[in-house]
Protein backbone atom coordinates (compact mmCIF):
# COMPACT_ATOMS: atom_id res chain seq x y z
CA UNK A 1 0.00 0.00 0.00
CA UNK A 2 2.78 2.40 0.92
CA UNK A 3 4.53 1.89 -2.41
CA UNK A 4 1.30 2.52 -4.28
CA UNK A 5 0.75 5.71 -2.35
CA UNK A 6 4.22 6.95 -3.20
CA UNK A 7 3.57 6.21 -6.86
CA UNK A 8 0.25 8.03 -6.61
CA UNK A 9 1.97 11.08 -5.17
CA UNK A 10 4.61 10.88 -7.88
CA UNK A 11 1.84 10.97 -10.44
CA UNK A 12 0.42 14.07 -8.85
CA UNK A 13 3.87 15.63 -8.93
CA UNK A 14 3.98 15.04 -12.67
CA UNK A 15 0.54 16.60 -13.08
CA UNK A 16 1.44 19.64 -11.09
CA UNK A 17 4.28 20.55 -13.40
CA UNK A 18 1.72 21.01 -16.14
CA UNK A 19 -1.21 22.49 -14.26
CA UNK A 20 -0.62 23.84 -10.75
CA UNK A 21 -3.53 23.38 -8.39
CA UNK A 22 -5.13 26.25 -6.49
CA UNK A 23 -3.32 27.08 -3.24
CA UNK A 24 -6.16 25.59 -1.18
CA UNK A 25 -5.50 22.20 -2.71
CA UNK A 26 -4.76 19.27 -0.49
CA UNK A 27 -1.97 18.37 -2.88
CA UNK A 28 -0.62 21.87 -3.22
CA UNK A 29 3.04 22.40 -4.17
CA UNK A 30 3.95 18.75 -4.09
CA UNK A 31 6.84 19.27 -6.49
CA UNK A 32 8.45 22.11 -4.54
CA UNK A 33 12.07 22.05 -5.83
CA UNK A 34 13.35 24.00 -2.82
CA UNK A 35 12.67 21.08 -0.48
CA UNK A 36 15.39 18.56 0.32
CA UNK A 37 14.66 14.92 -0.39
CA UNK A 38 14.15 14.26 3.32
CA UNK A 39 11.80 17.21 3.70
CA UNK A 40 9.91 16.12 0.64
CA UNK A 41 9.58 12.59 2.05
CA UNK A 42 8.30 13.99 5.33
CA UNK A 43 5.87 16.23 3.50
CA UNK A 44 4.70 13.31 1.34
CA UNK A 45 4.10 11.23 4.46
CA UNK A 46 2.01 14.05 5.86
CA UNK A 47 0.03 14.21 2.63
CA UNK A 48 -0.50 10.49 2.82
CA UNK A 49 -1.97 10.93 6.27
CA UNK A 50 -4.19 13.69 4.97
CA UNK A 51 -5.51 11.36 2.29
CA UNK A 52 -6.04 8.60 4.83
CA UNK A 53 -8.02 10.95 7.03
CA UNK A 54 -9.99 12.25 4.09
CA UNK A 55 -10.84 8.70 3.06
CA UNK A 56 -12.07 7.95 6.55
CA UNK A 57 -14.52 10.81 6.30
CA UNK A 58 -16.48 9.15 3.49
CA UNK A 59 -19.52 7.33 4.81
CA UNK A 60 -20.50 3.83 3.77
CA UNK A 61 -23.94 3.25 2.33
CA UNK A 62 -25.93 0.13 3.20
CA UNK A 63 -28.67 -1.68 1.29
CA UNK A 64 -31.54 -4.09 1.86
CA UNK A 65 -31.33 -7.66 0.51
CA UNK A 66 -31.29 -7.85 -3.31
CA UNK A 67 -31.91 -4.07 -3.36
CA UNK A 68 -30.06 -1.01 -4.65
CA UNK A 69 -32.56 1.49 -3.27
CA UNK A 70 -31.09 4.40 -1.29
CA UNK A 71 -33.06 4.85 1.91
CA UNK A 72 -33.09 8.05 3.98
CA UNK A 73 -30.03 7.13 6.05
CA UNK A 74 -28.16 6.30 2.85
CA UNK A 75 -29.10 9.66 1.38
CA UNK A 76 -27.96 11.41 4.56
CA UNK A 77 -24.59 9.66 4.30
CA UNK A 78 -24.30 10.56 0.63
CA UNK A 79 -25.10 14.20 1.38
CA UNK A 80 -22.06 14.26 3.68
CA UNK A 81 -19.92 12.50 1.06
CA UNK A 82 -21.04 15.01 -1.57
CA UNK A 83 -19.96 17.83 0.75
CA UNK A 84 -16.45 16.36 0.97
CA UNK A 85 -16.30 16.04 -2.81
CA UNK A 86 -17.40 19.63 -3.21
CA UNK A 87 -14.73 20.80 -0.75
CA UNK A 88 -11.95 18.96 -2.57
CA UNK A 89 -12.65 19.40 -6.26
CA UNK A 90 -9.45 17.64 -7.37
CA UNK A 91 -10.55 14.36 -5.76
CA UNK A 92 -12.02 11.64 -7.93
CA UNK A 93 -13.72 8.65 -6.36
CA UNK A 94 -14.44 5.09 -7.32
CA UNK A 95 -17.67 3.91 -5.74
CA UNK A 96 -17.42 0.20 -4.98
CA UNK A 97 -20.64 -1.80 -4.86
CA UNK A 98 -20.68 -4.93 -2.70
CA UNK A 99 -23.13 -7.76 -1.98
CA UNK A 100 -23.61 -10.28 0.79
CA UNK A 101 -22.97 -13.98 0.13
CA UNK A 102 -26.62 -14.91 -0.40
CA UNK A 103 -26.56 -14.73 -4.16
CA UNK A 104 -24.54 -16.46 -6.79
CA UNK A 105 -21.10 -15.05 -7.58
CA UNK A 106 -22.23 -13.79 -10.97
CA UNK A 107 -25.59 -12.34 -9.93
CA UNK A 108 -23.84 -10.53 -7.08
CA UNK A 109 -21.38 -8.92 -9.50
CA UNK A 110 -24.38 -7.46 -11.34
CA UNK A 111 -26.11 -6.48 -8.07
CA UNK A 112 -22.96 -4.71 -6.79
CA UNK A 113 -22.79 -2.74 -10.02
CA UNK A 114 -26.40 -1.66 -9.58
CA UNK A 115 -25.63 -0.47 -6.04
CA UNK A 116 -22.51 1.42 -7.12
CA UNK A 117 -24.48 2.92 -10.02
CA UNK A 118 -27.29 4.03 -7.69
CA UNK A 119 -24.74 5.92 -5.59
CA UNK A 120 -22.94 7.57 -8.52
CA UNK A 121 -26.27 8.54 -10.08
CA UNK A 122 -27.40 10.14 -6.85
CA UNK A 123 -24.12 12.05 -6.50
CA UNK A 124 -24.24 13.19 -10.12
CA UNK A 125 -27.78 14.43 -9.52
CA UNK A 126 -26.57 16.32 -6.45
CA UNK A 127 -23.84 18.44 -7.92
CA UNK A 128 -20.85 16.08 -8.25
CA UNK A 129 -19.45 16.08 -11.78
CA UNK A 130 -19.90 12.73 -13.47
CA UNK A 131 -16.27 12.71 -14.65
CA UNK A 132 -15.18 12.50 -11.02
CA UNK A 133 -17.18 9.34 -10.40
CA UNK A 134 -16.58 5.72 -11.36
CA UNK A 135 -18.75 2.74 -10.36
CA UNK A 136 -17.11 -0.65 -9.86
CA UNK A 137 -18.72 -3.82 -8.54
CA UNK A 138 -16.91 -6.33 -6.37
CA UNK A 139 -19.95 -8.55 -5.91
CA UNK A 140 -19.48 -10.77 -2.85
CA UNK A 141 -15.70 -10.92 -3.29
CA UNK A 142 -14.72 -8.42 -0.58
CA UNK A 143 -16.95 -8.89 2.48
CA UNK A 144 -16.50 -6.30 5.21
CA UNK A 145 -17.54 -8.77 7.90
CA UNK A 146 -16.82 -12.47 7.40
CA UNK A 147 -19.27 -15.15 8.43
CA UNK A 148 -22.91 -15.94 7.83
CA UNK A 149 -26.01 -14.46 9.40
CA UNK A 150 -27.88 -11.18 9.02
CA UNK A 151 -25.38 -9.33 11.27
CA UNK A 152 -22.62 -9.99 8.75
CA UNK A 153 -24.80 -9.79 5.66
CA UNK A 154 -26.22 -6.36 6.54
CA UNK A 155 -22.65 -5.00 6.86
CA UNK A 156 -21.64 -6.52 3.54
CA UNK A 157 -24.50 -5.11 1.43
CA UNK A 158 -22.82 -1.78 0.93
CA UNK A 159 -21.14 0.82 -1.24
CA UNK A 160 -17.73 2.23 -0.30
CA UNK A 161 -15.70 5.15 -1.55
CA UNK A 162 -12.13 4.95 -2.78
CA UNK A 163 -10.16 8.04 -3.75
CA UNK A 164 -8.59 7.98 -7.18
CA UNK A 165 -7.44 10.66 -9.57
CA UNK A 166 -6.18 10.89 -13.10
CA UNK A 167 -6.75 8.45 -15.92
CA UNK A 168 -4.54 5.88 -14.20
CA UNK A 169 -7.03 5.51 -11.38
CA UNK A 170 -4.18 5.16 -8.92
CA UNK A 171 -5.19 3.86 -5.54
CA UNK A 172 -4.94 6.34 -2.72
CA UNK A 173 -6.98 4.62 -0.03
CA UNK A 174 -10.30 2.98 0.63
CA UNK A 175 -12.95 4.38 2.91
CA UNK A 176 -13.70 2.19 5.90
Amino acid at each position, binding site marked *: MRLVLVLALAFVVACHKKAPEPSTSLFDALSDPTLSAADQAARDAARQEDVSRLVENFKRVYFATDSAILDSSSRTALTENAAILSKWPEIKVEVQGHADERG*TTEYNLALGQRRA*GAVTSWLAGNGVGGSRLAAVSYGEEMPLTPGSGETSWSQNRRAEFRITWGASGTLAGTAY
Partner: protein
Amino acid sequence: MFAFLAALAHAQIVIDVPGRADLPVAVPAPAASDPAAAEFHDAVFRDLHMSGYFSLIDPAAILDPSTGVEPGTFSWDPYKLVNATVLVKTRWLPAGDPTCDASGKRVCADLFLYYVVTGETLVRERYKGDARDPRAVGHAVAAKVVKAITGRDAPFLDRLAAVSNATGNKEIYLLDLDGRNVVPVTRNGSINLSPGLSHDGRQLAWTSYRRGNADVFVKDLSSGRVRLVSSVPGVNVSPDFTRGGDLVVARTVDTEVDLFLLDGRTGAESSRLTTGGGIDVSPDVGPGDAMVAFASERSGGSQIYLRDMRTGDARRVSFAGDYNSDPAISPIGDRIAFVTREAGGFDIMVSDMAGRNLTRLTQGQGDNEDPTWSPDGQYLVFSSTRTGRSELWLSTADGNHQVQLTKGGGWTQPAWLP
Protein backbone atom coordinates in the same frame (compact mmCIF):
# COMPACT_ATOMS: atom_id res chain seq x y z
CA MET B 1 -31.82 -47.36 -21.14
CA PHE B 2 -30.22 -50.40 -19.53
CA ALA B 3 -26.69 -51.44 -20.36
CA PHE B 4 -26.03 -55.14 -20.12
CA LEU B 5 -22.62 -56.69 -20.19
CA ALA B 6 -22.88 -59.74 -22.39
CA ALA B 7 -20.65 -61.77 -20.12
CA LEU B 8 -22.75 -60.92 -17.09
CA ALA B 9 -26.21 -60.87 -18.62
CA HIS B 10 -26.82 -64.54 -18.05
CA ALA B 11 -26.09 -64.02 -14.38
CA GLN B 12 -28.95 -61.48 -14.17
CA ILE B 13 -26.69 -58.54 -13.34
CA VAL B 14 -28.18 -55.34 -14.66
CA ILE B 15 -26.28 -52.08 -14.49
CA ASP B 16 -28.50 -49.02 -14.74
CA VAL B 17 -27.30 -45.41 -14.75
CA PRO B 18 -24.66 -44.66 -12.09
CA GLY B 19 -25.85 -43.85 -8.59
CA ARG B 20 -26.84 -47.14 -6.96
CA ALA B 21 -23.26 -47.95 -5.97
CA ASP B 22 -24.28 -51.52 -5.11
CA LEU B 23 -22.16 -53.94 -7.17
CA PRO B 24 -19.65 -55.43 -4.69
CA VAL B 25 -16.13 -55.14 -6.08
CA ALA B 26 -12.82 -56.20 -4.56
CA VAL B 27 -9.75 -54.19 -5.57
CA PRO B 28 -6.76 -55.70 -3.72
CA ALA B 29 -3.54 -53.69 -3.82
CA PRO B 30 -0.89 -54.87 -6.31
CA ALA B 31 2.02 -56.86 -4.88
CA ALA B 32 4.52 -54.10 -5.65
CA SER B 33 4.75 -51.72 -2.72
CA ASP B 34 6.62 -48.70 -4.08
CA PRO B 35 4.91 -45.28 -3.75
CA ALA B 36 4.00 -45.20 -7.45
CA ALA B 37 2.19 -48.54 -7.12
CA ALA B 38 0.31 -47.16 -4.10
CA GLU B 39 -0.71 -44.05 -6.06
CA PHE B 40 -1.84 -46.24 -8.96
CA HIS B 41 -3.95 -48.43 -6.69
CA ASP B 42 -5.40 -45.42 -4.86
CA ALA B 43 -6.51 -43.96 -8.20
CA VAL B 44 -8.19 -47.21 -9.30
CA PHE B 45 -9.93 -47.58 -5.94
CA ARG B 46 -11.15 -43.99 -5.71
CA ASP B 47 -12.28 -43.86 -9.34
CA LEU B 48 -14.38 -47.01 -8.99
CA HIS B 49 -15.91 -45.57 -5.82
CA MET B 50 -16.50 -42.24 -7.58
CA SER B 51 -18.26 -43.91 -10.50
CA GLY B 52 -21.37 -44.68 -8.49
CA TYR B 53 -21.72 -48.24 -9.81
CA PHE B 54 -19.82 -50.17 -7.16
CA SER B 55 -19.72 -50.95 -3.50
CA LEU B 56 -15.99 -51.03 -2.73
CA ILE B 57 -14.96 -53.82 -0.35
CA ASP B 58 -12.49 -52.73 2.34
CA PRO B 59 -9.08 -54.03 1.19
CA ALA B 60 -8.23 -54.86 4.82
CA ALA B 61 -11.11 -57.37 4.86
CA ILE B 62 -9.66 -59.32 1.95
CA LEU B 63 -7.46 -62.14 3.26
CA ASP B 64 -5.77 -63.40 0.09
CA PRO B 65 -2.34 -64.91 0.93
CA SER B 66 -1.49 -65.19 -2.77
CA THR B 67 0.05 -62.41 -4.83
CA GLY B 68 -1.03 -64.10 -8.06
CA VAL B 69 -3.04 -62.15 -10.58
CA GLU B 70 -3.33 -64.57 -13.49
CA PRO B 71 -6.17 -67.11 -13.68
CA GLY B 72 -5.43 -70.21 -11.62
CA THR B 73 -2.74 -68.60 -9.46
CA PHE B 74 -5.03 -67.67 -6.56
CA SER B 75 -8.10 -68.98 -4.75
CA TRP B 76 -11.61 -67.52 -5.10
CA ASP B 77 -12.41 -68.25 -1.48
CA PRO B 78 -11.11 -64.97 0.06
CA TYR B 79 -13.28 -63.06 -2.44
CA LYS B 80 -16.39 -65.20 -2.02
CA LEU B 81 -15.96 -64.75 1.73
CA VAL B 82 -16.46 -60.98 1.39
CA ASN B 83 -19.25 -61.41 -1.17
CA ALA B 84 -17.30 -59.84 -4.02
CA THR B 85 -19.11 -60.10 -7.34
CA VAL B 86 -16.35 -58.49 -9.34
CA LEU B 87 -12.60 -58.75 -8.69
CA VAL B 88 -10.09 -56.21 -10.01
CA LYS B 89 -6.58 -57.70 -9.81
CA THR B 90 -3.62 -55.64 -10.97
CA ARG B 91 0.10 -56.20 -11.43
CA TRP B 92 2.31 -53.11 -11.22
CA LEU B 93 5.47 -52.99 -13.34
CA PRO B 94 7.57 -50.17 -11.93
CA ALA B 95 9.86 -47.81 -13.82
CA GLY B 96 12.76 -49.74 -15.34
CA ASP B 97 10.95 -53.08 -15.49
CA PRO B 98 12.40 -54.71 -18.66
CA THR B 99 9.07 -56.28 -19.67
CA CYS B 100 7.49 -52.78 -19.71
CA ASP B 101 10.06 -50.10 -20.54
CA ALA B 102 13.73 -50.59 -19.63
CA SER B 103 14.43 -46.84 -20.09
CA GLY B 104 12.46 -46.09 -16.92
CA LYS B 105 10.33 -43.40 -18.52
CA ARG B 106 7.22 -45.53 -18.72
CA VAL B 107 5.40 -47.74 -16.23
CA CYS B 108 2.89 -50.52 -16.87
CA ALA B 109 -0.05 -52.11 -15.12
CA ASP B 110 -1.70 -55.40 -16.04
CA LEU B 111 -5.42 -55.57 -15.40
CA PHE B 112 -7.19 -58.88 -14.73
CA LEU B 113 -10.92 -58.36 -14.31
CA TYR B 114 -12.84 -61.37 -12.98
CA TYR B 115 -16.46 -62.29 -12.45
CA VAL B 116 -16.12 -64.04 -9.11
CA VAL B 117 -19.43 -65.98 -9.28
CA THR B 118 -18.40 -68.02 -12.32
CA GLY B 119 -14.65 -67.46 -12.29
CA GLU B 120 -14.77 -65.93 -15.76
CA THR B 121 -11.96 -63.63 -16.90
CA LEU B 122 -13.64 -60.53 -18.32
CA VAL B 123 -10.55 -58.46 -19.18
CA ARG B 124 -6.81 -59.06 -19.29
CA GLU B 125 -4.99 -56.06 -20.63
CA ARG B 126 -1.74 -54.12 -20.19
CA TYR B 127 -1.73 -50.35 -19.66
CA LYS B 128 1.33 -48.18 -20.15
CA GLY B 129 1.85 -44.59 -19.03
CA ASP B 130 4.26 -41.85 -18.04
CA ALA B 131 6.27 -42.90 -14.96
CA ARG B 132 5.73 -39.41 -13.51
CA ASP B 133 1.95 -39.89 -13.36
CA PRO B 134 1.08 -43.35 -12.03
CA ARG B 135 -2.44 -42.14 -11.20
CA ALA B 136 -3.15 -41.64 -14.91
CA VAL B 137 -2.48 -45.38 -15.45
CA GLY B 138 -4.91 -46.05 -12.60
CA HIS B 139 -7.55 -43.82 -14.22
CA ALA B 140 -7.21 -45.76 -17.50
CA VAL B 141 -7.52 -49.12 -15.69
CA ALA B 142 -10.58 -47.94 -13.72
CA ALA B 143 -12.21 -46.61 -16.91
CA LYS B 144 -11.71 -50.03 -18.54
CA VAL B 145 -13.37 -51.75 -15.56
CA VAL B 146 -16.39 -49.45 -15.82
CA LYS B 147 -16.58 -49.93 -19.58
CA ALA B 148 -16.40 -53.73 -19.26
CA ILE B 149 -19.08 -53.92 -16.57
CA THR B 150 -21.49 -51.17 -17.67
CA GLY B 151 -20.75 -50.52 -21.33
CA ARG B 152 -20.32 -46.84 -20.48
CA ASP B 153 -17.27 -44.61 -20.82
CA ALA B 154 -16.02 -43.17 -17.52
CA PRO B 155 -14.69 -39.61 -17.09
CA PHE B 156 -11.72 -40.51 -14.84
CA LEU B 157 -9.14 -38.95 -17.18
CA ASP B 158 -11.13 -35.70 -17.52
CA ARG B 159 -9.99 -32.38 -16.11
CA LEU B 160 -11.71 -29.39 -14.54
CA ALA B 161 -11.09 -25.66 -14.48
CA ALA B 162 -12.00 -24.02 -11.18
CA VAL B 163 -11.33 -21.06 -8.89
CA SER B 164 -9.26 -21.40 -5.72
CA ASN B 165 -8.28 -18.78 -3.16
CA ALA B 166 -5.40 -20.89 -1.84
CA THR B 167 -2.89 -18.08 -2.47
CA GLY B 168 -5.10 -15.54 -0.72
CA ASN B 169 -6.41 -14.38 -4.10
CA LYS B 170 -8.94 -16.04 -6.32
CA GLU B 171 -7.03 -17.54 -9.24
CA ILE B 172 -8.05 -20.02 -11.97
CA TYR B 173 -6.55 -23.53 -12.04
CA LEU B 174 -6.83 -26.71 -14.07
CA LEU B 175 -6.99 -29.95 -12.09
CA ASP B 176 -7.66 -33.64 -12.59
CA LEU B 177 -11.15 -34.87 -11.76
CA ASP B 178 -9.73 -36.47 -8.59
CA GLY B 179 -8.41 -33.10 -7.40
CA ARG B 180 -4.75 -33.85 -8.27
CA ASN B 181 -2.32 -32.25 -10.75
CA VAL B 182 -3.36 -28.69 -9.96
CA VAL B 183 -1.91 -26.29 -12.55
CA PRO B 184 -2.39 -22.49 -12.43
CA VAL B 185 -3.99 -20.72 -15.39
CA THR B 186 -3.85 -17.24 -13.84
CA ARG B 187 -1.31 -15.84 -11.39
CA ASN B 188 -2.03 -12.12 -11.37
CA GLY B 189 -2.83 -11.55 -7.68
CA SER B 190 -6.15 -9.96 -8.60
CA ILE B 191 -9.66 -11.48 -8.44
CA ASN B 192 -10.33 -14.10 -11.13
CA LEU B 193 -13.76 -15.70 -11.55
CA SER B 194 -16.11 -17.80 -13.67
CA PRO B 195 -13.89 -19.94 -15.92
CA GLY B 196 -15.57 -21.16 -19.11
CA LEU B 197 -14.00 -23.51 -21.66
CA SER B 198 -14.29 -23.41 -25.43
CA HIS B 199 -15.73 -26.65 -26.79
CA ASP B 200 -12.42 -27.65 -28.35
CA GLY B 201 -10.87 -27.28 -24.88
CA ARG B 202 -8.22 -24.86 -26.12
CA GLN B 203 -9.51 -21.52 -24.83
CA LEU B 204 -10.45 -20.45 -21.33
CA ALA B 205 -12.58 -17.35 -20.81
CA TRP B 206 -12.94 -15.76 -17.39
CA THR B 207 -13.64 -12.57 -15.47
CA SER B 208 -10.67 -10.75 -13.97
CA TYR B 209 -10.09 -7.50 -12.10
CA ARG B 210 -6.49 -7.28 -13.29
CA ARG B 211 -7.32 -3.94 -14.97
CA GLY B 212 -9.28 -2.69 -11.95
CA ASN B 213 -12.68 -3.55 -13.37
CA ALA B 214 -14.59 -6.80 -13.93
CA ASP B 215 -13.49 -7.55 -17.52
CA VAL B 216 -13.61 -10.73 -19.60
CA PHE B 217 -10.35 -12.22 -20.87
CA VAL B 218 -9.59 -15.30 -22.96
CA LYS B 219 -6.43 -17.36 -22.56
CA ASP B 220 -5.20 -19.70 -25.28
CA LEU B 221 -4.22 -22.69 -23.15
CA SER B 222 -1.57 -23.96 -25.57
CA SER B 223 0.21 -20.68 -26.40
CA GLY B 224 -0.52 -19.01 -23.06
CA ARG B 225 -1.53 -15.83 -24.88
CA VAL B 226 -4.19 -13.72 -23.14
CA ARG B 227 -6.57 -11.32 -24.86
CA LEU B 228 -9.11 -8.85 -23.48
CA VAL B 229 -12.51 -9.43 -25.09
CA SER B 230 -15.03 -7.41 -23.06
CA SER B 231 -14.27 -4.30 -21.02
CA VAL B 232 -17.22 -1.91 -21.02
CA PRO B 233 -17.47 0.36 -17.94
CA GLY B 234 -19.34 -1.64 -15.30
CA VAL B 235 -19.39 -5.43 -15.19
CA ASN B 236 -18.28 -7.87 -17.90
CA VAL B 237 -19.04 -11.26 -16.38
CA SER B 238 -20.04 -14.92 -16.76
CA PRO B 239 -18.54 -15.76 -20.18
CA ASP B 240 -19.75 -18.93 -21.93
CA PHE B 241 -18.51 -20.23 -25.27
CA THR B 242 -20.82 -21.24 -28.10
CA ARG B 243 -19.99 -24.43 -30.05
CA GLY B 244 -18.97 -22.07 -32.85
CA GLY B 245 -16.26 -20.47 -30.69
CA ASP B 246 -18.02 -17.17 -29.93
CA LEU B 247 -18.78 -15.88 -26.46
CA VAL B 248 -21.95 -14.98 -24.60
CA VAL B 249 -21.22 -12.53 -21.75
CA ALA B 250 -23.35 -10.53 -19.35
CA ARG B 251 -22.37 -6.88 -19.24
CA THR B 252 -23.50 -3.48 -18.14
CA VAL B 253 -25.61 -1.44 -20.52
CA ASP B 254 -27.15 1.77 -19.15
CA THR B 255 -28.43 0.81 -15.69
CA GLU B 256 -28.85 -2.91 -16.26
CA VAL B 257 -26.92 -6.04 -17.18
CA ASP B 258 -27.83 -7.84 -20.40
CA LEU B 259 -26.48 -10.72 -22.48
CA PHE B 260 -24.37 -10.07 -25.56
CA LEU B 261 -22.97 -12.36 -28.22
CA LEU B 262 -19.35 -11.44 -28.95
CA ASP B 263 -16.87 -12.60 -31.56
CA GLY B 264 -14.76 -15.12 -29.63
CA ARG B 265 -11.55 -13.90 -31.25
CA THR B 266 -11.89 -10.12 -31.28
CA GLY B 267 -14.60 -9.48 -28.70
CA ALA B 268 -16.54 -7.45 -31.27
CA GLU B 269 -20.25 -7.32 -30.48
CA SER B 270 -22.28 -9.57 -32.81
CA SER B 271 -25.67 -9.05 -31.21
CA ARG B 272 -27.50 -8.13 -28.04
CA LEU B 273 -29.42 -11.17 -26.81
CA THR B 274 -31.56 -9.65 -24.05
CA THR B 275 -33.05 -6.23 -23.35
CA GLY B 276 -34.79 -4.85 -20.31
CA GLY B 277 -35.85 -6.55 -17.11
CA GLY B 278 -32.86 -5.57 -14.98
CA ILE B 279 -30.17 -8.18 -14.41
CA ASP B 280 -29.69 -10.98 -16.97
CA VAL B 281 -26.62 -13.03 -16.07
CA SER B 282 -24.96 -16.49 -16.06
CA PRO B 283 -25.66 -17.59 -19.67
CA ASP B 284 -25.18 -21.24 -20.63
CA VAL B 285 -25.35 -22.07 -24.32
CA GLY B 286 -27.05 -25.40 -25.10
CA PRO B 287 -26.10 -28.05 -27.69
CA GLY B 288 -26.10 -26.93 -31.30
CA ASP B 289 -26.06 -23.30 -30.09
CA ALA B 290 -29.85 -23.59 -30.38
CA MET B 291 -30.68 -22.00 -27.04
CA VAL B 292 -29.15 -20.17 -24.11
CA ALA B 293 -30.24 -20.61 -20.51
CA PHE B 294 -29.71 -17.65 -18.19
CA ALA B 295 -30.82 -16.11 -14.91
CA SER B 296 -33.06 -13.06 -15.09
CA GLU B 297 -35.02 -10.95 -12.62
CA ARG B 298 -37.50 -9.79 -15.28
CA SER B 299 -40.35 -11.38 -13.30
CA GLY B 300 -39.09 -10.19 -9.90
CA GLY B 301 -36.60 -12.45 -8.13
CA SER B 302 -33.93 -14.27 -10.12
CA GLN B 303 -35.39 -17.10 -12.23
CA ILE B 304 -34.13 -19.34 -15.04
CA TYR B 305 -35.09 -18.54 -18.64
CA LEU B 306 -34.40 -20.29 -21.94
CA ARG B 307 -33.86 -18.12 -24.98
CA ASP B 308 -34.37 -19.63 -28.43
CA MET B 309 -31.36 -18.38 -30.41
CA ARG B 310 -33.30 -18.43 -33.69
CA THR B 311 -36.53 -16.69 -32.70
CA GLY B 312 -35.18 -14.69 -29.76
CA ASP B 313 -38.13 -15.76 -27.62
CA ALA B 314 -37.38 -16.41 -23.96
CA ARG B 315 -39.50 -18.58 -21.68
CA ARG B 316 -39.30 -19.07 -17.95
CA VAL B 317 -38.34 -22.59 -16.84
CA SER B 318 -37.98 -22.29 -13.03
CA PHE B 319 -41.03 -21.85 -10.86
CA ALA B 320 -40.29 -23.03 -7.30
CA GLY B 321 -38.66 -20.61 -4.88
CA ASP B 322 -37.81 -16.93 -5.22
CA TYR B 323 -34.17 -17.22 -6.30
CA ASN B 324 -32.90 -19.62 -8.97
CA SER B 325 -29.67 -19.01 -10.87
CA ASP B 326 -26.53 -20.51 -12.47
CA PRO B 327 -28.22 -22.73 -15.08
CA ALA B 328 -26.26 -25.47 -16.86
CA ILE B 329 -27.86 -27.30 -19.80
CA SER B 330 -26.99 -31.01 -20.06
CA PRO B 331 -24.79 -32.00 -23.02
CA ILE B 332 -27.68 -33.56 -24.95
CA GLY B 333 -30.03 -30.72 -24.08
CA ASP B 334 -32.60 -32.70 -22.11
CA ARG B 335 -32.09 -31.26 -18.61
CA ILE B 336 -31.09 -28.08 -16.79
CA ALA B 337 -29.11 -28.06 -13.56
CA PHE B 338 -29.37 -24.87 -11.51
CA VAL B 339 -28.94 -23.39 -8.06
CA THR B 340 -31.89 -22.57 -5.83
CA ARG B 341 -31.71 -20.41 -2.71
CA GLU B 342 -33.41 -21.76 0.39
CA ALA B 343 -33.51 -20.80 4.05
CA GLY B 344 -30.55 -23.05 4.87
CA GLY B 345 -28.37 -22.12 1.90
CA PHE B 346 -28.02 -22.92 -1.78
CA ASP B 347 -28.94 -26.27 -3.33
CA ILE B 348 -28.51 -27.93 -6.71
CA MET B 349 -31.64 -28.93 -8.64
CA VAL B 350 -32.10 -30.59 -12.02
CA SER B 351 -35.24 -30.22 -14.15
CA ASP B 352 -36.32 -31.07 -17.66
CA MET B 353 -36.24 -28.33 -20.30
CA ALA B 354 -39.74 -27.19 -19.36
CA GLY B 355 -38.78 -26.77 -15.71
CA ARG B 356 -40.73 -29.87 -14.65
CA ASN B 357 -39.66 -33.24 -13.20
CA LEU B 358 -37.42 -31.67 -10.60
CA THR B 359 -34.65 -33.73 -9.03
CA ARG B 360 -32.98 -32.40 -5.91
CA LEU B 361 -29.27 -33.15 -5.69
CA THR B 362 -28.53 -31.50 -2.34
CA GLN B 363 -30.41 -30.50 0.81
CA GLY B 364 -29.28 -29.23 4.20
CA GLN B 365 -25.59 -29.59 3.33
CA GLY B 366 -24.29 -26.02 3.36
CA ASP B 367 -24.09 -23.99 0.16
CA ASN B 368 -24.00 -25.94 -3.08
CA GLU B 369 -23.34 -23.85 -6.20
CA ASP B 370 -22.11 -23.70 -9.79
CA PRO B 371 -23.10 -27.07 -11.28
CA THR B 372 -21.21 -28.25 -14.39
CA TRP B 373 -22.11 -31.38 -16.40
CA SER B 374 -19.77 -34.17 -17.45
CA PRO B 375 -19.57 -34.39 -21.24
CA ASP B 376 -21.61 -37.62 -21.14
CA GLY B 377 -24.31 -36.14 -18.89
CA GLN B 378 -23.92 -38.89 -16.26
CA TYR B 379 -22.33 -36.69 -13.58
CA LEU B 380 -22.25 -33.15 -12.23
CA VAL B 381 -19.51 -31.36 -10.36
CA PHE B 382 -20.33 -28.40 -8.11
CA SER B 383 -18.92 -26.58 -5.08
CA SER B 384 -20.22 -27.43 -1.63
CA THR B 385 -19.47 -26.08 1.85
CA ARG B 386 -20.84 -29.20 3.60
CA THR B 387 -17.48 -29.97 5.25
CA GLY B 388 -17.22 -26.40 6.52
CA ARG B 389 -14.97 -25.39 3.65
CA SER B 390 -15.78 -24.89 0.00
CA GLU B 391 -14.70 -27.97 -1.95
CA LEU B 392 -15.56 -29.49 -5.31
CA TRP B 393 -17.93 -32.46 -5.21
CA LEU B 394 -19.05 -34.92 -7.85
CA SER B 395 -22.58 -36.30 -7.96
CA THR B 396 -24.25 -38.81 -10.22
CA ALA B 397 -26.96 -37.02 -12.19
CA ASP B 398 -29.64 -38.66 -10.02
CA GLY B 399 -27.97 -37.19 -6.89
CA ASN B 400 -27.77 -40.59 -5.18
CA HIS B 401 -23.99 -40.87 -5.03
CA GLN B 402 -21.72 -37.95 -4.13
CA VAL B 403 -17.97 -37.83 -3.49
CA GLN B 404 -15.57 -35.07 -2.47
CA LEU B 405 -12.96 -34.29 -5.13
CA THR B 406 -10.71 -31.62 -3.57
CA LYS B 407 -9.16 -31.17 -0.15
CA GLY B 408 -7.81 -27.91 1.19
CA GLY B 409 -10.77 -25.61 0.83
CA GLY B 410 -11.44 -22.47 -1.13
CA TRP B 411 -12.55 -24.22 -4.34
CA THR B 412 -15.45 -22.71 -6.30
CA GLN B 413 -16.90 -22.34 -9.81
CA PRO B 414 -15.87 -25.61 -11.50
CA ALA B 415 -16.09 -25.99 -15.28
CA TRP B 416 -15.71 -29.43 -16.86
CA LEU B 417 -13.18 -29.52 -19.69
CA PRO B 418 -14.72 -30.92 -22.89
